[in-house]
């Protein structure tokens, strides 16, 4: 079990007074202090951990956020920023003495500028809404986390979120041009903007992926891209994970730049096919879905080239989509995978990354460890960049099963680090992987990172108990 720090009772004692002060800044109903309403903010998508916050505030403006930050600082109350609460890593799990600052009301599009290919938004807007607002102009916002219907841009910036299409277009940090942010002292700053490079130290690059620990980002300027004329996938089935892994490397090396390259292993194929009836072959060990973009002719030529590159690996199935209906069918199983597995069992979704050359060995070691713990693991992941998403199935009502699932998860992440990979490719550390950080970094390396946190937030008031092992946080140098 992951521990959370002991709440500061002296802060909790000031709860009513702080609520009253916050109500002087915000309309009554935007300060939440009743037990039943607070319950809605007790967890994010890592819902095995729950803790209602002391208070929740739902501001409308950056100026209100600045005032809230100042009031909370005077009261000594930490702030947990929250977009839509879709973090799989417990990135917005409150502590009992914290104020959750929800960005859900700040969801406006402030400016669309297709000449300069940027959009400026408030950060409570959902990822998908950004693209929806510019689709009629022929543009889209590239990072596409699978929670994009719900997840907020603010959360994407906090975690530097990726998605299936980041193989071609990069992750959030590569598509973020500027932010407006409230700092720990309540000062409002702007970093970057509609221009490509910011001057001075790359603070923007540092803020993206800082898990809400450096400040409250209230506005973002995002790069937008012209929509491709079309896109079509091709599906390959293989007899072994090893060969599928080799085919992935061959596609990448050939420079065919697919926009997505997704991998499913046998357990994932079986579950998805039973659920979605996508027509996946059930007699293969691994599936690859490879999507390319362009005009009809460009797509055809790219798919032909990809088929040729994959042919030496003797795929037992090759299904090339000829039209939108077939494309939707190929994607149906992949898109349904998480939901289908969710119908069978509770699951933990991991997010480690490994070098492509280690894919096959990591998958076989995963199967071995799953057997050892007597748990089922399905693998559905972004193969092009080695970002694994093992789904560990367990029984949430059975504490023994839950404990085993967590232990297996930790073993699998250690395995990724051993293979020269990392603990998390796109979900973030949150509370979930906090205690594993010392498997990837030594203490000195973590203390240097913590020193950067000191520079932004000397009192460690933003998003407490995340990213670093609790013991290191508690023994940190007095700032």
């Amino acid at each position, binding site marked *: 079990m992951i521990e959370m720090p002991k709440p500061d009772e002296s802060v909790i004692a000031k709860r009513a007074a702080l609520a009253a002060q916050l109500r002087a800044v915000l309309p009554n109903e935007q300060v939440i202090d009743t037990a039943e309403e607070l319950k809605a903010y007790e967890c994010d998508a890592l819902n095995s951990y729950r803790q209602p916050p002391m208070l929740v505030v739902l501001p409308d403006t950056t100026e209100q956020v600045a005032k809230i930050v100042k009031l909370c600082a005077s009261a000594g109350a930490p702030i947990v920023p929250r977009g839509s609460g879709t973090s799989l890593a417990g990135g917005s799990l409150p502590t009992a003495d914290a104020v959750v600052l929800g960005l859900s009301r700040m969801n406006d599009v402030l400016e669309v*500028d297709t*000449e*300069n290919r940027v959009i400026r938004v408030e950060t409570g807007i959902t990822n998908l809404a950004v693209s929806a607002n510019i689709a009629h102009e022929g543009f889209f916002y590239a990072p596409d986390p699978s929670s994009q219907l719900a997840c907020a841009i603010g959360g994407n910036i906090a975690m*530097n979120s990726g998605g299936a299409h*980041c193989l071609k277009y*990069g*992750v959030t940090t*590569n598509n973020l041009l*500027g932010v407006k942010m409230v*700092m720990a002292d309540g000062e409002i*700053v702007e970093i970057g*903007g*509609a*221009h*490509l*490079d910011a001057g*001075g*130290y*790359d*603070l923007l*690059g*540092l803020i993206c*992926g*800082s898990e809400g620990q450096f400040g409250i980002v209230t506005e973002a300027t995002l790069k937008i*891209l*012209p929509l491709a004329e079309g896109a079509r996938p091709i599906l390959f089935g293989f007899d072994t994970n090893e060969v599928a892994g080799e085919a992935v*490397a*061959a596609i*990448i*090396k050939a*420079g065919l730049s697919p926009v997505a390259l997704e991998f499913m292993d046998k357990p994932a194929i079986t579950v998805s096919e039973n659920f979605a009836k996508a027509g996946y072959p059930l007699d293969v060990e691994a599936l690859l879905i490879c999507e390319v973009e*362009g005009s009809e002719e*460009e797509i055809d*030529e790219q798919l032909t*080239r990809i088929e040729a590159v994959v042919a030496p690996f003797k795929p037992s199935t090759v299904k090339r989509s000829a039209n939108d209906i077939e494309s939707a069918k190929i994607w149906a199983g992949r898109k349904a995978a998480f939901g289908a597995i969710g119908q069978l069992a509770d699951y933990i979704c991991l997010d480690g*990354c490994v*070098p*492509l050359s280690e894919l096959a060995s990591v998958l076989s070691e995963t199967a071995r460890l799953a057997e050892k713990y007597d748990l089922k693991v399905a693998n559905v992941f972004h193969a*092009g*960049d*080695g*970002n694994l998403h093992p789904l560990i199935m367990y029984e949430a009502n059975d504490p023994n099963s839950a404990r085993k699932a967590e232990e297996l998860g930790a073993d699998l992440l250690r395995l990724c680090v051993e293979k020269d*990979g*990392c603990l*998390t*490719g*796109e979900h973030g*550390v949150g509370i979930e*992987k906090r205690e594993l*950080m010392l498997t*990837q*970094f030594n203490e*000195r*390396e973590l203390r*240097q990172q913590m*020193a*950067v946190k*000191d*520079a932004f937030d000397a009192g460690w008031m933003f998003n407490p108990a995340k*990213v670093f092992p609790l013991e290191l946080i508690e023994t940190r140098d007095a700032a």
Partner: protein
Amino acid sequence: MLTPDSEAGVAAAIRDAVVSKTPLELTAGGTHRALGRPVQAAQTLSLSELTGVTLYEPGELTLVVQAGITIAALNKLLDAENQQLTFEPPDYRALLSSTGEPTIGGAIAVAASGPRRLRAGAARDALLGIRYVNGQGEVLRSGGRVMKNVTGYDLPKLMCGAYGTLGAITEIGLKVIPKVEVVRTLAILGLDDAQAVAAMSGALKTPTDVSAAAHLPQSVSKELGFTDAVTLLRVEGFETQAAYRITVLQEALSEFGSVETIESDPWPAIRDVMMFAGDDRAVWRLSVKPTDAPGLVAALQTQIECEAFYDWGGGLIWLACDEGADAQEPIVRDAISNIDGHATLMRASDTVRAAVPVFQPEPKPIAALSERIRAEFDPAGILNPGRMRG
């Protein structure tokens, strides 16, 4: 000059410098020494002997090298696998009248990105991870070698463009990309600056993956042998794809006149700012919103004698003007003060670069934050002191 041949040697040199309170100028190829403010340092620490290739996995588009390896050696390595760096690092030797060999460490330290930055991202976007020695002589890692990594804060981005003021980068992990089969350059002649930015925006609205877009007004284009102002677009792909993309662009840009393929390759000269090489003018680099660029240049041209050209679809302006006593710094900064963006003085004498802010002055809270960050990495202030701010 200290030239350790190992990372441990770099760390030992920095620890010695801390003890003896000796400020260090960090260098590798030495081609960027005239960028930033002049450094007052008693000793030079060169990373030029760190030239190892730690790992190159073409099938993973992954390269890990020591910081002192030259860009030329790196390109040779990548050529053999038909791959290339994503960010097309410039060679500023002609511009800065410097000698030596540009290194990857130098490119990362000054965040030098060429024309492809528009499409494939900047130097910082290619970084997968680094090893570095901080100002206390500690060897530290951040990031890694895998393509996606959000484990801990993104310190590689912070180090990129920090001009060696936060640490000595010893090893760099990079994402590389395959070379494309066909590269073509399209040219439109005779546009004024505003029309040119409109044409480039028009091109960048099409899904043709234009990998570079620049505009050279007539006074600059003649240096590359053009008879008139020229707007340039680089189109890439496999043969049929490039041909198709060209027809899409020709149709989308028909209102701007004839869009023709040219035989010459103007991009290395644009990347290296060759048009401003070999004279004694001050050179500025302005990063702005593309549609603001022509107005900014026009406003400056009413006040000072200057020449400009545009890269990154108009988002990057290179401007040459009389150096005088201050490289026209008050006028340039005043002109940019009303719009989003920043100006960096890229070429001027040591005297001028010591006298005026080379980098865009930051608002107080940001400057204070940057100083706090610097103090956390280099508490003794011995790494490239004064290089970024006085």
